[in-house]
């Protein structure tokens, strides 16, 4: 991307880390074997994929045997929701999720509803937080799964997953968390969280697009989403995406090594951006939780101004107005709507997510440009 540009959209995607690119390179060339083949070229690919599996396991405190590679966070989410219900008798299945989930949870849930599965969608408070008690109230004898995201992609709000896991455990119901936005941004440990399933997305943590993983706690199983031969212990068919799995492994390994410095840098830059914007823009509203939030995410609204209009005037800044995956329609984001944000405030939402490509200088420059643009629009210029 051009040198003058400031990329403040790390929640949408990230560039592949040089370390991850380097790890993948040999497997794009001479090490092209199929991990299922028995000769050395195949075994080498197999070993590399298993090494990557260990790297993914380590960043979330899991065992390598609990990791299944997928084509991305969306597939991981689909796999859990569709794989846990018994479609032979859809009506005897119930799942609980919440209103601010990513479309990769809400749309599979909607599809299951069409097939007859019962789905409870619990609400959130003004910060976007779920109350674990609200989840407990929805539990029924036929409840198969509780699925609540770890961190929201639009607001960065963190959910009380540990408490939700306890609710699940009390009732013997498995808990899934979509951690696509959290892994690499904050320390994540499946044991501390107490979850049974956890979604990882490669391209949100400086790994490649097109790869992800699902943590499946040992002893639990799912009906495959992609049926076929016995790859991934029979849980996910298709010739392994050797290159991208290795890229994901290397990205996880790097993220695990530098998590404290990444968190610290993000916190400082996001904090500075937040400070400058609130100083410079009168009436600015924070969307999301003030403290229980990803350290890199800032979602603010300029009441009365359309977010898209603000960004249009500053092409050097790349940021979002809603979530990237469903950006092409102009309507109030379902996340803000569920938080009870009014139309007037919600349409002015801007999401900035800082990351490794940023410097403090960039963040300060971005703040100046944003403030200037907002003042200009307000003055009717």
């Amino acid at each position, binding site marked *: *991307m051009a040198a003058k540009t400031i990329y403040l*959209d790390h929640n*949408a*995607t*990230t*560039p*592949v880390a*040089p370390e991850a*690119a380097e790890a993948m390179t040999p497997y*794009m*060339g001479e090490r*092209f074997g*199929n991990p*299922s*083949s*028995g*000769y*050395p070229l*195949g075994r080498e690919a197999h070993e590399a994929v298993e090494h990557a599996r260990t790297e993914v396991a380590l960043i979330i405190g899991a065992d390598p045997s609990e990791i299944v590679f*997928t*084509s*991305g966070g*969306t*597939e991981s*989410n*689909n796999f859990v929701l569709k794989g846990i219900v018994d479609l*032979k008798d859809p009506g005897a299945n119930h799942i609980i999720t919440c209103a601010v989930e*990513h*479309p*990769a949870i809400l*749309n599979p849930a*909607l599809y299951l509803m069409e097939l007859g599965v019962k789905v409870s969608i619990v609400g959130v408070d003004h910060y976007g937080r779920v109350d674990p008690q609200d989840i407990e109230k929805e539990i029924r004898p036929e409840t198969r799964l509780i699925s609540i995201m770890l961190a929201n992609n639009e607001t960065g709000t963190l959910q009380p997953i540990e408490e939700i896991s306890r609710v699940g455990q009390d009732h013997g119901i498995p808990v899934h968390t979509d951690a696509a936005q959290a892994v690499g941004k904050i320390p994540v440990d499946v044991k501390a969280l107490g979850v049974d399933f956890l979604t990882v997305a490669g*391209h949100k943590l400086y790994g*490649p*697009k*097109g*790869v992800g993983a699902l943590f499946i706690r040992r002893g639990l199983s799912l009906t495959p*989403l*992609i*049926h*076929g*031969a*016995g790859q991934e212990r029979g849980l996910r*068919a*298709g*010739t*392994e*995406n*050797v290159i*991208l799995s290795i890229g994901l492994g290397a990205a996880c390994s790097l993220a695990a090594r530098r998590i404290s410095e990444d968190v610290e840098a993000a916190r400082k830059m996001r904090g500075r951006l937040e400070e400058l914007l609130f100083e410079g823009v009168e009436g600015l509203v924070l969307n999301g939780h003030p403290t229980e939030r990803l350290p890199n995410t800032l979602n603010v609204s300029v009441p009365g101004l359309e977010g898209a209009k603000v*960004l249009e005037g500053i*092409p050097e800044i*790349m940021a*979002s*107005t809603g979530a*990237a*995956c*469903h*950006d*092409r329609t102009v309507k109030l984001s379902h996340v803000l709507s569920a938080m009870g944000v009014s139309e007037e405030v919600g349409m002015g939402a801007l999401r900035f997510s800082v990351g490794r490509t940023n410097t403090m200088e960039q963040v300060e420059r971005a703040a100046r440009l944003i403030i200037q643009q907002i003042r200009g629009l307000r003055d009717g210029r």
Partner: protein
Amino acid sequence: MEREVYLDNAAATPVRKEVLEAMLPYFDKYYANPSTMYKPGLEVKKVLDEQRAKVADLIGASPEEIVFTSSGAEANNLAVKGIPFAHRKKGNHIIISAIEHHSVLNSARFFERLDYEVTFLQVDEFGFVNPRRVEELIRQETVLVSIMHANNEIGTIQPIQEIAEVCKSKGVFFHTDAVATVGNIPVDVNELGVDLLSISGIPLGAPKGTGALYFRKGTRIMPLIHGGIQESGRRAGTENVPGIVGLGKAAELAKQDVEEWSNKVKALRDRLIYGVLERIERTRITGHPEKRLPAHASFCVEAIEGEALIYMLSSQGIYANTGSACASKALKTSPVLVAIGVPPDIAQGSVVFTLGRSNSMEDVDYVLEKLPHVVERLRAMSPLWKQEAA
């Protein structure tokens, strides 16, 4: 080792040089998410659309008829599950052949649990499906027929046009798994007359983890992966941009050279097939001798174990397979060989060579030189062989 000869191109291929070059900038330089509204995102989106046009062009389709997937297996799952789920009112009967790839076979089996009936169509000694038999088996409730274009274990190419005509006349969706053909022979969806067709990046020299499904305009299908509105809502998930760029480039290259390559490699294949049959007694070719993939040579060698043969060949620098790579961990005796009537003891001696763009006549001659010795040594150790010789 005197030489290394890789003859397992059905399992994996090296990424073509031009393909790799095309992909690389999309890992770091052009990293924007194609769903975003700013310039770099819109540019990546445009690049994805260009790739869709290239893949469409390779098989004579329109760009909007192509959905990118994470593999051929996913494309097969999308077709074989997506059609019955989207057309539940039409019926609950699915017809597939007995020699389909696991991704089709197990997708169909998934429906058996949901009270669908699945008919597994038998094949003849060459592995051919009889179109007349398909016609007889189609009934009111039949919602999908799925027959592979060519089989990866025995190389036989099916009479897809005739089967497609039957399905069309009966008003039943017809899917073909063309993972083994696209990239190996020219394929045109309109000539074939299919409604859905699966592609994998592997035979094209694109990276693993890429694939696509063609489905004819107007065909309603239930997504396999729900979520965001990528791929026009037909396949959710942030796009594997470098992979798709690789697949597009590989399709563009194949459009230019697949016919020429396919004719050229046939000569190597035939030299290998007839050379093996000539040099090793009591060896049979599996699949049809002519109506087969141009780069595919498969045999059953009596009185030996295919696994042992592969192992011994590997020590000579020759890399081959006993069947399909995917099946090698899943199963012992190949159901494909059983389906074409090979006796189980002879099916044990299965060996499959699949040629690639890097192979030369010298490679074939090296195999023809080494293989008879390896077989001889294995047979010398085989109680079966000794018994019969005695």
